[in-house]
């Protein structure tokens, strides 16, 4: 969802991602729960040197807690950089492709924040940007900062979505993007 807060306080919302679902709503389905756990680890925000763990029951019935994000030189680690998410805003309206590795007309990239609702198998990522001057936003993207195998920080584009029509955002206004993952 993209929202623009106008100078008069009005908030205009536009839902642009309607079918990014990776799971279904089978609340009792084990593989959906595991898909949530794994995708949660994939997109986890972990400060440099930090870690993330989750709990599960092994096949013998023992309760286990294990780290899924930690360490240096690994994709699921934070040894070289803050493993943070970023939202990109851009001006290009070329249809998205799985070959995209960056926004095509990137205007800004801002730190995103995440909220996780484990009981609902849902998490959201959101970011907001206030341009210094008027812009037209036609594309948004989700970036992840991660460590490559040489423990060097890299930015990866995880999603690029093009708005059905560009949004004009004036100076002093704010545009925000929310990625909602529902399993």
């Amino acid at each position: 969802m993209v929202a623009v807060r106008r100078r008069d306080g009005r908030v205009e919302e536009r839902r642009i991602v309607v079918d990014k679902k990776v799971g279904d709503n089978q609340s009792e389905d084990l593989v959906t729960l595991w898909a949530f756990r794994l995708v949660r680890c994939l997109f986890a925000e972990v400060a440099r040197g930090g870690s993330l763990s989750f709990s599960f029951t092994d096949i013998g019935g023992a309760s286990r807690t294990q780290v899924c994000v930690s360490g240096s030189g690994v994709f699921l680690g934070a040894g070289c950089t803050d493993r943070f998410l970023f939202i990109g805003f851009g001006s290009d309206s070329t249809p998205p492709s799985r070959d995209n590795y960056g926004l095509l007309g990137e205007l800004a990239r801002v730190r995103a924040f995440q909220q996780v609702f484990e009981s609902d198998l849902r998490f959201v990522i959101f970011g907001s940007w206030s341009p210094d001057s008027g812009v037209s936003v036609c594309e948004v993207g989700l970036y992840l900062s991660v460590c490559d195998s040489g423990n060097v920080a890299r930015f990866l584009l995880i999603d690029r979505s093009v708005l059905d029509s560009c949004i004009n955002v004036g100076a002093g206004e704010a545009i925000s993007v929310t990625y909602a993952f529902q399993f």
Partner: protein
Amino acid sequence: MFVVEDFIGDSKVGEVVKLESNGNDLFTLWILRAFLSVFVPVSTGGTVSFTALDDTGASRTFKMKFSVAGTFSHIFNTYACSHFVRVRFGRDSTPPSRTNFRLLQETYVDVNTRISLNEDAGYILIEGTAIFPSDTTVCEVGLSLGATVSSYNVCGEFLIDRTVLDPCRTVPANTPYVVRYRLQV
């Protein structure tokens, strides 16, 4: 889309669709990369990597499974444990629950479960086979992962899917019964 298909001999009996396909987009590609890395088996001390373009367009290598000596506690650390996937077979027809951690009446585990990637079609296949010495009823199938489940050196296995077949399948003696998990972009 996550589909469970089952076969008796060469004949497909049916399928259970677990997840919906959401198109051929970048995000879905990332989900496939992540799942492929999770499922790919690797021996103790081994590495599983994938390559992707960073935001400058340069190709980079990222390690999903790795071996780190010492006391590095990570589910994908292969330092002391091999990582694998197994298809499991059972006879209980109790509806599945997210609290299931094993099949309820397990009769067979394929320890030679195969995994393959079809890049052109954009899916991975995980295939397990059972051959029973006598006519056997199969009502539940499952998928488990072997990994480092505690600390850096406690090896274990955990169930990530339990699917109940409706109706239960009657598998003739000495006939291959194949269960195929298909994860498709």
